[in-house]
């Protein structure tokens, strides 16, 4: 036992755990991340708190908790697999531990502990709020006892499952004995999980129809989810039993968890060595195909580009970020757009705002491949070697620029062609958007490369750092949004007409292009001419980069939550009635108006409209502001505050409608009386 504890402590100290560093700055970083997650926890807790009455009344506490625990277990398994495999097999200490006289099961137990610590983070995020809320609202002595023990033991089973699966895979499958392959598939799973989580969330928030109905349907969904982990039923019974008998259930749950770990340690003891040893043998190729390579002479720029391209395709971290960014993101966007538009929308003809905003959007998405802002960083320590080649700086830079340009233009094409079919813009709009966004794409690839030349991230041991933790990406994005948002704003403010606007945009973008080209050639000839890549400088900026990155992400998270909170708590719908029209404004960017003469009928009803789909706007439970599609009524505007009636329905002559509902029901009735006189 003692030896196990020592080993576990060494592994954790050794940086196997994120944030277990002696470094004070790293500690603050962890603290900041926790602070950033607090709002999420609070929101979760708050919504459960509000819903507790309904949940308890319909005897769903057990189902909800079981569902949350099951969801947590699924997340732990899916996200844990990568962590398990890299901790057990690919971490630096693996081989050196193997040479020491320590039995496999003790190594595995220590590594299991490291993974467990990571899983507690997930648990805190997903089920901690529910445990706390249910406990405070209705828990007794036995609740707290069992809840704490269940919380401690909950990750054991999923982590054991992950561990057993990975030990089996690594022992028997040759396919996964490759670090790159494992990383690639694990990265893919993580992306799919992220997508998989957001889609049901969207669904749930659309389910604003009736709270009780949503609850019962999600309750049954949760029951289904809980079937996956029967052990969680034991846990729920233990937690809500409330008597000494529930301690029996608790004991059963703990025993089951312990059994899972024991099975893993038993299997691991037999199979761990086999996997690790297989790992160190798998890199050897069976056959060498030395003779068949076709040598070919290329211009230096193309040779550089070809080398970079190979690197992108062969390094999983790069393919995931660069290739998926270039192809997957535009395709997803187009598919989502195609589904939400239902082919029903045509964009305004010859509208300068449409042109300037489309350029911003297209250029932004076309550069999500981050190839150019990471072009130097991706080479890592090899980057400095490029400085010794007798190649003109212009050639080196052009070669570095080519892969990014190619991928950006590919994304641009992927988006532009379907957009032209979906939105049917007039040819003038189409041509000017194409030209302008092509210019912008070139500009911002150049600018990204310039940034990476100025402060590349070269001293890494893991390629992911070059493409993920590279602050140049964020700067490039930010500058791009400002530089392309500004002309859109100017065009709007100055009320430029179509031709004036397009000429202004063209000149503006060409000037940007010239500036970017000048910056790039200035820095490029410095680096590749004589100065070299300053290495010392890089190390210093890395720390600063980290701090700035954290600050920015916290600000962004805080801003998003601030906005959501503000929308939820403080925004009120303002209705102004003038001589001829009614104008409504509510919150950020939600406004609409209709003419009094357009009113067809006005009536009060006690039920919330049944929403099919949110089109644009804000929706959280019964709070809805914006444009929605409603069962039986079609498309129109909703401005509602709560589920309590009355609801004021205003139907216009063109078939569209507006529904109001204020916290103060007298206000709704007053508005009804005012508008009623205009209805025919």
């Amino acid at each position: 036992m003692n030896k196990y504890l020592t080993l576990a402590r060494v592994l954790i100290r050794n940086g196997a755990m994120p944030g277990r560093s002696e470094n004070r700055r790293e500690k603050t970083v962890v603290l900041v991340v926790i602070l950033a997650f607090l709002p999420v926890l609070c929101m979760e807790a708050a919504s459960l708190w509000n819903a507790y009455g309904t949940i308890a009344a319909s005897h769903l506490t057990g189902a909800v908790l079981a569902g949350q625990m099951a969801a947590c277990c699924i997340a732990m398994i899916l996200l844990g697999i990568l962590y398990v495999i890299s901790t057990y097999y690919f971490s630096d200490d693996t081989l050196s531990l193997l040479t020491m006289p320590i039995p496999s099961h003790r190594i595995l137990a220590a590594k299991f502990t490291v993974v467990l610590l990571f899983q507690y983070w997930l648990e805190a995020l997903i089920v901690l709020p529910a445990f706390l809320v249910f406990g405070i609202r209705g828990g007794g002595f036995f609740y707290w006892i069992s809840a704490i023990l269940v919380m401690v033991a909950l990750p054991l089973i999923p982590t054991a499952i992950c561990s057993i699966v990975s030990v089996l895979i690594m022992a028997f499958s040759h396919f996964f004995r490759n670090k790159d392959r494992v990383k690639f598939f694990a990265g893919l799973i993580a992306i799919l999980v992220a997508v998989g989580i957001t889609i049901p969330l969207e669904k749930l928030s659309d389910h604003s129809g009736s709270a009780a109905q949503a609850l019962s349907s999600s309750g049954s969904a949760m029951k289904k989810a809980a079937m996956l982990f029967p052990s969680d039923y034991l846990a729920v019974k233990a937690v809500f039993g409330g008597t000494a008998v529930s301690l029996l259930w608790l004991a059963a749950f703990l025993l089951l968890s312990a059994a899972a770990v024991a099975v893993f340690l038993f299997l691991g003891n037999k199979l761990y060595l086999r996997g690790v040893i297989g790992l160190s043998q798998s890199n050897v190729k069976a056959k060498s195909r030395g003779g068949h390579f076709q040598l070919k002479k290329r211009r230096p720029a193309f040779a550089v580009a070809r080398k970079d391209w190979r690197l992108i395709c062969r390094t999983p971290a790069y393919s995931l970020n660069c290739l998926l960014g270039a192809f997957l993101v535009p395709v997803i966007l187009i598919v989502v757009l195609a589904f939400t538009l239902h082919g029903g929308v045509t964009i305004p003809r010859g509208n300068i705002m449409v042109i300037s905003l489309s350029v911003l959007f297209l250029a932004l998405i076309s550069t999500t491949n981050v190839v150019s802002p990471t072009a130097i960083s991706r080479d890592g320590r090899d980057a400095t070697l490029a400085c010794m080649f007798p190649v003109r700086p212009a050639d080196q830079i052009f070669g570095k620029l080519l892969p990014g340009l190619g991928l950006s233009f590919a994304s641009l094409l992927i988006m532009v062609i379907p957009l032209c079919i979906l939105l049917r813009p007039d040819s003038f709009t189409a041509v000017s958007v194409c030209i302008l966004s092509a210019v912008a794409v070139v500009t911002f690839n150049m600018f990204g490369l310039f940034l990476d030349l100025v402060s590349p991230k070269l001293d890494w041991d893991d390629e992911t750092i070059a493409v993920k933790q590279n602050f140049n990406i964020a700067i490039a994005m930010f500058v791009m949004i400002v530089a392309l948002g500004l002309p859109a704003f100017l065009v709007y403010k100055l009320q430029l007409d179509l031709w004036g606007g397009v000429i202004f945009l063209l000149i503006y973008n060409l000037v940007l292009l010239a500036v970017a080209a000048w910056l790039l050639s200035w820095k490029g000839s410095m680096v590749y001419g004589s100065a070299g890549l300053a290495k010392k400088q890089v190390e210093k900026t890395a720390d600063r980069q980290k701090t700035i990155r954290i600050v920015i992400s916290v600000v962004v998270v805080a801003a998003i939550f601030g906005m959501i909170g503000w929308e939820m708590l403080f925004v009120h719908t303002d209705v102004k009635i003038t001589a001829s029209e009614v104008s409504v404004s509510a919150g950020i960017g939600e406004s609409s108006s209709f003419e009094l003469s357009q009113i067809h009928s006005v009536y009060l009803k006690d039920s919330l409209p049944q929403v099919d789909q949110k089109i644009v706007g804000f929706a959280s439970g019964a709070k809805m502001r914006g444009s929605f599609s409603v069962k039986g009524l079609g498309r129109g505007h909703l401005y509602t505050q709560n589920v309590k009636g009355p609801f004021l329905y205003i139907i216009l002559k063109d078939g569209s409608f507006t529904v109001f509902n204020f916290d103060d029901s007298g206000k709704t009735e007053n508005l009804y009386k005012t508008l009623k006189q205009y209805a025919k």
Partner: protein
Amino acid sequence: MIEFSDVSKSFGPSKIAVDHLSLTVNDGEIFGFLGPNGAGKTTSIKMMTGILKPDSGRIKINGIDIAENPIEAKKQFGYVPDSPDQFLRLKGIEYLDFMADMYDVPLELREERIKKFSDEFEMSTALGNTIQSYSHGMRQKIVIIGALLHDPAVWILDEPLTGLDPKSAYTLKQRMRQHADAHKTVFFSTHVLEVVENLCDHVAIIDHGHILFAGSLEELKEQHKGDESLEKIFLEMTDHE
């Protein structure tokens, strides 16, 4: 021919890696660059190759100033860095093709030289595998082949013999000798004193960024009459107590 005149380089205010170094390496000689770990050898070599920029001073390769005419100067030399762990994702043959493109080697010549060198260093069968799968010595050999592809006049080698098997080491030493005999320049750093004794015409000993000695091996032995072996001389010169 390599000329350092009054070259200095520091990393930050307190870390002076190379301190007012002046040195001339003539054509037709194998020049050994010796010094304890952290003496400033790699830093000097990186400044020669344009990877680092000196804080002050000039470096000329075959009479061409690396700061004033970098491209011409860089064509003069082939460089083997101290760590061969580079371009790991490329296959050996792809790496060589890439290096040949960088140095503008015509197609027939590159085919011929790749074949000749990879046979000589026994790398022919490994060329189709990625450099990642190579052993340390194999990586060292592929880097050496890449540096020699454009038949440079000046060879700059940073610890080229570490990790090579006896036969490859012999081949490389042989080639170094032939190159110097053809009245061209070989400059290399090493920690192996027997190699210096058997191979070098001239040596320089550097410590803490200062040159302690530069001249021929005979002169060095002349100065230190009492000591019979190069090892003793070296230890004595770099002893700080």
